[in-house]
């Protein structure tokens, strides 16, 4: 048993001795006498048996309270340990990534190596975060649109970077040769539509890809069996969280997280994490573009 759990149990036991109830039952001499004489008054028992009944009632109340507090506090502890603390880890991982990104932005004459290092670091730490949250294998990538002769709804997206664990496995030659268009991918299309509609919800979340009808994904074309290696995906457009011009929003690409497990992502904390990171990546991309224009 670890130290934290022992402390939780000890606090629960201490709490079961405290409270208004004990003040009411034992707060004064007459109330104590009343409890000890319960048996004698209502059950016509002897004095000795009445005292035993009174003490037993008090002991029973104490035990019930103790078990109730123990159950509540220990279960809360395990929920925190198993679930919520993963979000605490996210803060620690992403703090490092954001500090790298801030350093890049604050340092004049930034280099492309630092830029790419910051982006890959975001992907690596997001992967670590989501691996912990989902207890499954996740992959994170940053996709950007590329300039081509025919740029329209069919605009092609390419991976700028991916988490280091999956870049060799996923970014195969076949994957690179496939034309990943916006309209050919439900996730990009829906996310872009959400931004255009001014929806509060700007992400695309699918927790059961294989069971989704009309789901399109160009990555299927580049896999050998025509199947995707993931079952859940969360895609967020790389846009600023607060926009100067709400009528014209600048989008620099998409931040994509996928997981091999069904129902991997929740739309509360997980989306908030990816939203914050997308905003940070937007800043990095803007800073580099600004630097390029000045240079």
């Amino acid at each position, binding site marked *: 048993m670890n130290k934290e759990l022992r402390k939780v149990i000890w606090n629960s036991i201490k709490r079961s001795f405290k409270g208004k109830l004990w003040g009411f039952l034992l707060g004064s001499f007459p109330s104590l006498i009343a409890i000890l004489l319960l048996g004698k008054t209502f059950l016509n028992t002897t004095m000795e048996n009445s005292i035993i009944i009174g003490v037993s009632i008090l002991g029973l109340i104490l035990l019930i309270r103790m078990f109730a507090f123990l159950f509540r506090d220990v279960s809360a502890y395990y929920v925190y340990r198993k679930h919520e603390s993963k979000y605490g880890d996210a803060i620690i991982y992403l703090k490092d990534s954001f500090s790298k990104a801030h350093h890049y932005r604050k340092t004049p004459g930034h280099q492309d190596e630092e830029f790419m290092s910051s982006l890959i670091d975001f992907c690596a730490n997001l992967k670590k975060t989501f691996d912990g949250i989902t207890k499954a294998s996740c992959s994170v990538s940053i996709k950007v649109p590329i300039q081509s002769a025919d740029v329209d709804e069919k605009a092609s997206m*390419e991976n700028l970077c991916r988490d280091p664990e999956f870049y060799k496995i996923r970014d195969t030659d076949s994957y690179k040769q496939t034309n990943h268009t916006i309209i050919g991918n439900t996730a990009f299309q829906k996310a872009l539509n959400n931004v255009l509609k001014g929806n509060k919800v700007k992400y695309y979340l699918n927790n059961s890809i294989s069971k989704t009808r009309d789901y399109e994904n160009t990555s299927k074309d580049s896999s050998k069996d025509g199947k995707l290696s993931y079952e859940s995906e969360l895609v967020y457009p790389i846009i600023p969280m607060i926009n100067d011009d709400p009528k014209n929003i600048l*989008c620099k690409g998409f931040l994509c997280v996928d997981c091999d497990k069904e129902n991997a992502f929740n739309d509360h904390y997980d989306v908030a994490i990816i939203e914050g990171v997308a905003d940070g990546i937007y800043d990095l991309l803007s800073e580099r573009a600004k630097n390029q224009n000045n240079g």
Partner: protein
Amino acid sequence: MDKQKARAKIGFEVLHKDNNSVTFKRLIPLRNRNEKEVRAVELDLTKVTVKYFNKEDLIHLQKIGDGIYKAYEEKHKNLPQKVFGTVVDFVTK
């Protein structure tokens, strides 16, 4: 499905494009309005400008990325892998 219907299904279309970006606007149904009125409404709605990367620039950054991935791999190799890798390098290079 004709082009118009396909675009309506997508929900957006290109408003304008240049060498650096493409701007999309929403498509809304006619609903007793003529095309001119619909266009006016559409232009007043939120638009999204997608900035794109120059292909050469992207390749340049991806090459830098390849070097960073290798450094990550090296950093996360365990001791037997590192020893084995060093021996292989010594014998083969």
